[in-house]
């Protein structure tokens, strides 16, 4: 077929109704279709935007799935003390909240609830934002176990990790100012927030998809990971996954991610410093006990720290804890290399051991025994 004929043949609009219908009628129909489409599309986005405002779990399912579970547990168990652990995937996989709870109840002799609020890619910034949000939602734990992930304190990590892996659309409108103070670019925060209002089908597609049709999405982007935990919000890495090859690959991956950050030029980031201080100040103001926790690290991971980096981190933490009267639990040497899958994420047995040990920690138990400051 000649090219010109091909052009016209394939680009004639399809005939409407009977042959010979006036072109004006077809034009009129096309205009109606387009105008109706624009109206319906705008209406659909407005509906989704309203829905995400009324049901914020559609914006940030990773927070609200755990928040709902925590509230439910508090209503059912009515504990005298509630301990919530905030942290990254090290906390998510590394604290067996049920085992810690059993240990603390044994020491405390009263009902204690321990909940694992660990989130992937969380660092001091996201921990602070989530802690503030939890309190704003009238959910005040008695003790907060706050993970300190040393690499995420680094100046070099300021533009990576949390900023890279935590989508700004997870933040509520009232949190944008705080997020900007913690280093997220203001323009990016506003653009994302505006996107969730004007085009929620695009900006909220992962939480929406993960909630209503998870089978359509690969597991690593579904944002429903916080629904696939045990009753205390913990998850685990099966020991069976730690083959020598898997462990070697994991350690190599960890080295490539963190070695450059933990060099001799390590400096504490101002935003990480601010976020930690905010978390501690909030707890003090609300009468919440706070214990800083350095989670276990394998010898291979500890070897990544330059001496200057180790010193800078410990000086900072001791100053912070001393100034605020906060206890620091240093669990870095609690587990051997064989208890990790990649040098810093514990396997199931490692998580149990660390949680048992945490449950006997004097600082944590002391907070449970203190008089109610309220």
């Amino acid at each position, binding site marked *: 077929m000649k*090219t*010109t004929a*091909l*052009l*016209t043949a*394939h*680009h004639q*609009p*399809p*005939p*409407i*109704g009977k042959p010979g219908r006036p*072109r004006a009628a*077809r*034009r*009129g*129909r*096309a*205009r*109606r*279709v*387009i*105008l*109706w*489409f624009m*109206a*319906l*599309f705008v209406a*659909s986005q407005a509906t989704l935007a309203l829905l995400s405002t009324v049901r914020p779990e559609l914006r940030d399912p990773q927070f609200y799935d755990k928040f709902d579970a925590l509230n439910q547990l508090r209503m059912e168990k009515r504990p005298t003390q509630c301990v919530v652990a905030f942290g990254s995937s090290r906390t998510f996989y590394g604290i067996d909240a049920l085992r810690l709870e059993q240990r603390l109840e044994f020491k405390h002799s009263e009902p204690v609830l321990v909940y694992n609020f660990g989130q992937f890619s969380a660092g001091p910034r996201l921990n602070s934002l989530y802690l503030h949000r939890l309190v704003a939602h009238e959910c005040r734990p008695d003790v907060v176990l706050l993970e300190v992930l040393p690499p995420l304190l680094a100046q070099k990590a300021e533009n990576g990790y949390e900023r890279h892996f935590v989508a700004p659309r997870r933040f509520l409108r009232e949190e944008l100012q705080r997020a900007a103070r913690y280093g997220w670019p203001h323009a990016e925060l506003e653009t994302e927030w505006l996107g969730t209002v004007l*085009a929620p*089908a*695009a900006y909220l*597609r*992962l939480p*929406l*998809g993960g909630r209503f049709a998870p*089978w*359509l*999405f*690969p*597991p690593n*982007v579904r944002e429903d990971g916080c629904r696939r935990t045990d009753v205390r919000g913990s998850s685990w890495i099966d020991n069976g996954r730690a083959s020598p090859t898997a462990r070697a690959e994991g350690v190599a991956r960890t080295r490539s991610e963190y070695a450059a950050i933990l060099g001799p030029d390590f400096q504490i980031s101002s935003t990480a410093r601010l976020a930690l201080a905010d978390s501690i100040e909030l707890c003090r103001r609300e009468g919440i006990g706070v214990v800083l926790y350095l989670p276990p690290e394998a010898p291979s991971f500890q070897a990544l720290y330059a001496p200057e980096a180790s010193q800078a981190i410990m000086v900072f933490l001791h100053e912070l804890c001393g100034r605020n009267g906060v206890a620091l639990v240093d669990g870095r040497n609690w587990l051997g290399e064989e208890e990790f899958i990649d040098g810093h994420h514990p396997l199931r047995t490692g998580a149990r051991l660390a949680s048992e040990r945490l449950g006997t920690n004097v600082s944590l138990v002391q907070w449970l025994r203190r008089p109610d400051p309220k």
Partner: protein
Amino acid sequence: MLFCSLRFVQFFAIVATVYWLMPWRHARVYMLLGASFWFYRELCRELADVRLVWIVLGTAVLDYWLGRLLDVWSARRGRLAVLLVSIAVNLGVLGYLKYANFFLNTVAQSADLFGLHIHVGTLRILVPVGISFYTFEAINYTVDVYRRRLPAERNLANFLLFILFFPHLVAGPIVRARDFLAQVQRPKRWSWLRCQHGGALILRGAFLKLVVADRLALLVDPVFGEPSAFSTGATWLAVAAYALQIYGDFSGYSAMALGTAHLLGYKLAPNFNLPYLAVNISDFWRRWHMSLSRWLRDYLFIPLGGSTGSNWLTARNLLITMALGGLWHGASWTFVLWGVAHGTLLIAHRSFRSWCAARPRVTAALATWLGTNLARVATCGCVVALWIPFRARTLTDTTTILQRLLAFAPGQRADLPEVSLLVLFAALAVGHVVAFRARWQRSWSRVPAPVLAAAFAVAVNAVLLLAPPAGKTFIYFQF
């Protein structure tokens, strides 16, 4: 700035609004030209180096003046010399920028075979995006002017718009100068019909690209990246998925290019026509990347002699055309292997057709419903199998994948929920059946406007919801 990015949507919204508000035809041409130049500059900045935009501009201006020279010069030898200069410059730039390192590596590897170790190094060359496409368009212009099928374009802006027009600039379709330049000069008026048709094309393209191709890439990339790590089942899935991925990616991009051009009042030639429903390999090449196959036929196969000579000459011409067609896709022996394999299939099909011509019963059997569909399945199977060397990184990977397809091998499973894949395959199959039957066009015209609009709104939301997290570059951008 991909077609599926927010940045492009913002860019196009501004361009289209200003374009249709302008009452002057010539001003619109300059405005489109400026927008196209800006688009390509931003794309070069994102993908490579912003200075590459001057290469395409420089060669386009040269071709414009060579075309003017061809028009005024009547001496046959002189005109031929001018044509050869144009072809040499265009192919020379393409050859150097895209194939220099390939050539050097081939020389080094060939020398290794003879025990000579030559260190050739690697030239640091940045390849302009879309160079393969606009080079072929420039060549078709100068050849058509030489053959006096087309007068040389006198307006430089019109000619530059033909080369730089942003909907087709970076990944086709390969536009014929005589079709496009005629449209530049035609006055254009806003049309709701064209808007609806263009919008529908863009929506179809976005669905194929974002929902089909990008999603399947999540399965395909890991398997082709490390074929020895995956099981036989995962490998079979990945091979089938890639056939759909490349179709979704390329036909999706082409549909978006056509729709975008349509919204600006330009009609580009369609590039795909349900290629996986082809009944033989010749039919496949009349349905897949139609603009390239027509270009190869008109500017390479026919000048070589086409099918007018003996069977051996025809076979030679087919092999050369398809081998070069394969090489056009990429600087790698896997692409050449792919092209030669298709050439071989075309030769085999010609022989088979001649054999059938002498056997009416066989011809009749092939024309039945069962025969036609068996032929479709066989053609589809051959095409899908030949996508393996096209996608594989090396010939070694090609061999590994073939081994895993033909013999059971343990390994990792596919990294995408199987339900998701089944839904995608089913959606594509239904789409093909609906498109194949012309009835759907008549049904489309009887649906009330609000219902049709609601269907469009649902489709747009589905595309937005189902697009995978991070946008992937179009496969054919690498060309």
